[in-house]
Structure formats: structure tokens, C-alpha cells
């Protein structure tokens, strides 16, 4: 049965033209993206600063999850290492955008080309994302050879290495100390546009030849190989695209959250974003959009419950408990996530 699916996926490569593939099953993703844009515009126009910050955090998580989906969803290989790419994106954009005078105080030992770097936002974002992709190209060489539990442990090992290096390379990262001084902006529009771009890139990858081939390997690796698909090469391509997207999330984190240290890109963000992906449904891009939005809305409602915005105040700390319990409940009741496998 799975072999047949892989065959069908592979056959579509030849039967459908480039344009037909790109349009594919656009309506659902398009509708969700449009909904997201409407929500963001409403928040930008009428929301309080508080709500804007929440929306921005949601968008950053969404871009991260869309990036995770691009690799995990298409390949079926779990990664615990993507927070490492996010960290690279965040640190790279900090080094590129902190004003030169501030930088000479915070990071006096920078090499000259970084010390004198002053990038505008968009070039900084693209450079930071490219840095994450370059790192993915290096780590990808061993990682794409692995699957299952080995891949999970190897990607986690990568994350642990990133942690150690960031915490100790003080000339570049301030080590364990907080990185600050990045020009902040509380603006929903820029991250919203980045989110739309990220969804667009993820969609284009999903509909590309490489995306189809990679999903064929996810459904049945052996059949896919027998059709001449190179599993390693397709995974590698997906990893680069995915690291690039996660790098953008890192850039936005640096620019919109402003201060961070290596711990911000470790297990907690890894768990929360993976949970968002799985809750949404890890095999579909629609799930990668629905998951972060649903979880963020829930967390925000709980937060407001805790600080007494509603009639009844719920005790502090219940937010995390509810989040953990809910993740568990979704996993038990709907192991394929809210969007299921239908749209994969």
C-alpha cells in the first residue's frame, strides 16, 4: 500500500507540468495564509502593544514551525537540532545590526569585518538565514545519512554542540551573558510579511520535484530508492531550505525580542515548536500553520487567565501545565495532529 503511494507520488513528477505542480492544492494553504494576514492587520490596527507582542511571538514560532515542517514533514525524519539554526540566525543578525558604537562596547574583541558591519534589516535577515543554511550544509553531510532515532540523537548532539560553542565563544557571542543592543521594533507587519514569504518558500519546496521525491522516500524509502531517488540528496536540499527559514525566525527573534542568551535556543523552544508542529499535523503545511496559531491563542488565553483579565483568575503556572497536558491529549486522541494526514 505504501509502495503504491510512493509510486503515485513519483509518477506525478512526470505527469504534471511545472506550473500545475506549483499550483497543486493551493486553496487550503492560501486560505489559511489569508486568514493569518487578516488577523495580523487587525492586530496592527487595533491591538494593544501587549497583543502585538504576542502576535509577533506567534509569527516567529510559525516561521520556525514552517521551517521544521519543510524538513520533518517532507522527510519524515525528526530533528531536535533546528533551534541551533535559529540561534545562528539570531546571533548573526545581532552581529550585523547592533549599531557600531554599541557593538564596540558590548563586543570589543570582534574581528574588524564584523565590528564595522551595519546591515539594513532585509539584507541582515537574508545573510543571517544564509548563515544558518551554510551551517546546515556542513552538518547536513552526516545528518542526511541517518533516520529515525539515530537522526533524532544526531540532531540533538548538533544542538548541544551549538550550545557549547555559543556559551564559550565570548568574543562573538558574549558567552552566557545576554546579547542586547539590537535595534528593536514592535511592528506586526514585517514579521507578517516574512511569515507569508516563509509559507511561500515552504509551499514552493513542497511542490517542487525535490519535495515530491522526498515525500516518496518518507512513505516508502525502499520503493523510492528503487525508482532512482537519492534519499540523501533530497533530504539535504530540504534541510538547507528548512535551515534558511528557521534562520529567518532567528533573525526576527533577535530583532523583536531584543535580548537573548544561548539558553533561549535550547530545549524549551525545541519542545514548544515541535509540539506545535505535531499538534497541527506534521505531515502537512496547513498543519504547520494551524498548530502554532492554535497553541499561541490558547497560551495567550491562559496567560490572561493567570493575570486576572477574566472574571475568574486561574493560579500561576497553570499555563505550562495546561499546555503540557493539552499536547499530550492531542497526541493521544489525534496522533496525526489536528489537520491529520489528508493534506500531506
Amino acid at each position: 500500500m505504501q509502495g503504491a503511494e510512493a509510486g503515485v507520488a513519483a509518477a506525478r513528477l512526470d505527469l504534471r507540468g511545472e506550473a500545475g505542480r506549483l499550483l497543486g492544492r493551493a486553496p487550503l494553504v492560501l486560505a489559511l495564509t489569508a486568514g493569518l494576514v487578516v488577523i495580523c492587520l487587525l492586530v496592527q490596527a487595533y491591538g494593544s502593544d501587549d497583543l502585538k507582542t504576542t502576535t509577533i511571538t506567534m509569527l516567529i514560532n510559525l516561521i520556525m514551525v514552517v521551517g521544521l515542517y519543510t524538513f520533518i514533514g517532507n522527510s519524515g525524519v525528526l530533528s531536535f537540532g533546528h533551534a541551533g539554526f535559529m540561534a545562528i540566525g539570531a546571533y548573526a543578525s545581532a552581529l550585523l545590526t547592533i549599531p557600531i558604537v554599541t557593538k564596540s562596547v558590548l563586543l570589543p574583541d570582534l574581528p574588524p569585518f564584523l565590528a564595522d558591519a551595519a546591515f539594513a534589516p532585509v539584507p541582515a535577515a537574508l545573510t543571517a538565514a544564509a548563515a544558518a543554511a551554510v551551517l546546515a550544509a556542513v552538518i547536513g553531510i552526516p545528518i542526511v545519512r541517518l533516520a529515525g532515532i539515530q537522526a533524532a540523537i544526531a540532531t540533538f548532539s548538533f544542538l548541544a554542540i551549538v550550545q557549547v560553542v555559543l556559551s564559550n565563544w565570548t568574543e562573538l557571542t558574549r558567552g552566557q551573558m545576554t546579547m542586547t543592543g539590537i535595534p528593536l521594533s514592535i511592528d506586526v507587519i514585517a514579521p507578517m510579511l516574512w511569515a507569508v514569504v516563509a509559507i511561500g518558500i515552504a509551499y514552493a519546496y513542497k511542490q517542487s520535484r525535490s519535495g515530491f521525491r522526498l515525500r516518496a522516500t518518507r512513505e516508502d524509502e525502499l520503493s523510492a530508492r528503487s525508482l532512482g531517488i537519492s534519499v540523501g540528496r533530497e533530504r539535504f536540499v530540504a534541510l538547507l531550505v528548512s535551515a534558511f527559514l528557521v534562520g529567518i525566525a532567528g533573525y526576527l527573534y533577535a530583532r523583536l525580542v531584543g535580548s537573548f542568551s544561548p539558553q533561549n535556543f535550547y530545549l524549551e523552544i525545541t519542545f514548544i515548536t515541535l509540539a506545535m508542529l505535531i499538534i497541527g499535523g506534521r505531515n502537512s503545511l496547513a498543519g504547520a500553520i494551524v498548530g502554532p496559531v492554535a497553541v499561541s491563542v490558547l497560551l495567550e488565553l491562559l496567560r490572561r487567565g493567570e493575570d486576572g483579565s477574566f472574571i475568574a483568575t486561574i493560579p500561576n503556572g497553570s499555563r505550562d501545565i495546561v499546555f503540557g497536558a493539552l499536547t499530550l491529549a492531542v497526541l493521544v486522541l489525534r496522533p496525526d495532529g489536528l489537520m491529520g494526514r489528508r493534506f500531506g
Partner: protein
Amino acid sequence: MTEVAQYVVNGISLGALYALLALGVGLIFGVMNLVNFAQGAYIMLAGYVLFFTIEAPWAVVIPLVVVAGVVIALVTERIAFRPLRGADGSTRMVASFALAFLAQSIVVAIEGSAPKAIPIWSLMSESIVVLDVRIPVLDLITIGASTCLLTGLWLFLTRTRTGLAMRAAAEDFEMLRLLGGRADRVIAVAFAISGVLAAIAAVLLFSKTAVVDPTAGTNPVLIAFVATVIGGLGSILGAALGGFSLGVLTTALQATLPAGLSSYRDAFVFGIVIALLVFRPQGLLGDRAEAQRAV
């Protein structure tokens, strides 16, 4: 020479503790192909039980901690892993992650996130001197306890009927069911054992650190995973060997890395782990078929 002997003792003791951590994870993985992050939660919760009961005599405390470990492990099995038994490997892995997160949030809500000092028994911090080498008593207890538990587990797996069923489950779970093996019971027993291992590991670990906080289980469980994978998935002996090797490797790197690089020690450890996974994905003792079937 004395310094070398000192490192050897440290390495063996750390290796023994890591082996104990890895055994719990390796057992559950072997029996039901589950990567159980919640093992860290068992360790952390056992640490809190230790914190609350430490004033009592040790002969009361240790059984209490062990019972707590078993109960917690069985509860997680019942509420999360049993319903998810047929689910995809990564779904179950994330579920165990969620359990760990849930346990941590509950502890933070009740006890706060500040570390709690555990006034551990004074014996644990003493040391004896043999031929100029200072050997902490805790190291000896750790080595002894790990050896006993490993031997006990080995005897259980090879000499008892439930142990036999457990090895059969590790080999081919469906076949065990078809042949009338009591799958639920086998899995529950495996979780109970992993709870015992977590509890003893917690006593040894927190005797060393003397503090417990809500995230105290995270690093141990990560070490345990890495060790299990190094040792070979599905091989229980492999998990113990992997843990031991990882402890020795960590100590060896600590001893040999030049001063400027020693803070990067863990980066080297994890780099070696990645290399090992690529060149020997089945681990030190695992077989290749098992590695490919996993998850």
C-alpha cells in the same frame, strides 16, 4: 601516576552512573521501541521525594524513593504510552517530551523553580585514601549499586519467565502477542524496572550534586539517550556499555584536553557521538537489522 589513578576512579564512577541512567532508557527502548524522555521526569520527581524525606533514616528513605519512582513510571505508562502504543515513533517521542514538560511545570507550580538543597547523608561526602589515591565513598557506592543492578537485571532477564517474555518483546512484539504473551504486563514490568533504575540513579546523582530543581532530570536523560544509542539500540547490555563508555570518554577528555579547549569538552563528546552514529549506526553492540527497524 597518582593523578592517572584518580582519573581512572572518576571515570569508572561516572561511567557506572551513566550506565545506570542508560539502562532505564535502553530497557524501555528495547521492549517497546519508545524513546522515553519522561525518564528524566522520574529522576527529577524521585529527587523531590528524596528532598522531602531526607530527614528520615536512609533505610526508610531509599525504599520510599524507589516506590515513588515505580509509581510515577507506571502512571506515565498508563496515561500516555499505553494509548499511544500503535502510534508512530516520533509521535511517542514527542509525547514523552510532553510528559517531561508537564511534570516539570507541575513541580514549578507547586514548589517553584528555585533549586532545593538536599542535606545528604554525611557518609556520601567522605572519602577514603588508598595508596595516595583519594576515593570518594559515593564513587564506591555508585560503582557497587550499578554493578548490583546490572547483574540483577541480567539475572531477571535471563532466568525468569517475565524476563524471557521481555526479551521476546524486544525481539518481536507482535509475535509475543500472537503466542499469548501478556504484553500489557510485560510492558508494565519494564516501566516499573525503569522506575527503580531512575530512583536509584536519582539517589546517587543528587547525593553528588546535593541540590534538586525542576530541570534536574533533563541532563541525565539526555546523557542516557546518547549512551543508549552509542551502545546499540535494543541491546540492554549495550546501553550499559554505552553509558560506561560515555562516562569514561567524558573523564578522559576532561583530563587530556588543553586548558583553552576544556570548556568545549561537551562539544567534542557530542561530535564523537555524531561520528559514531554515521559510521556505526547500530551502535557498539547493536545489530544492523535492529537499528533499521527502530522508530
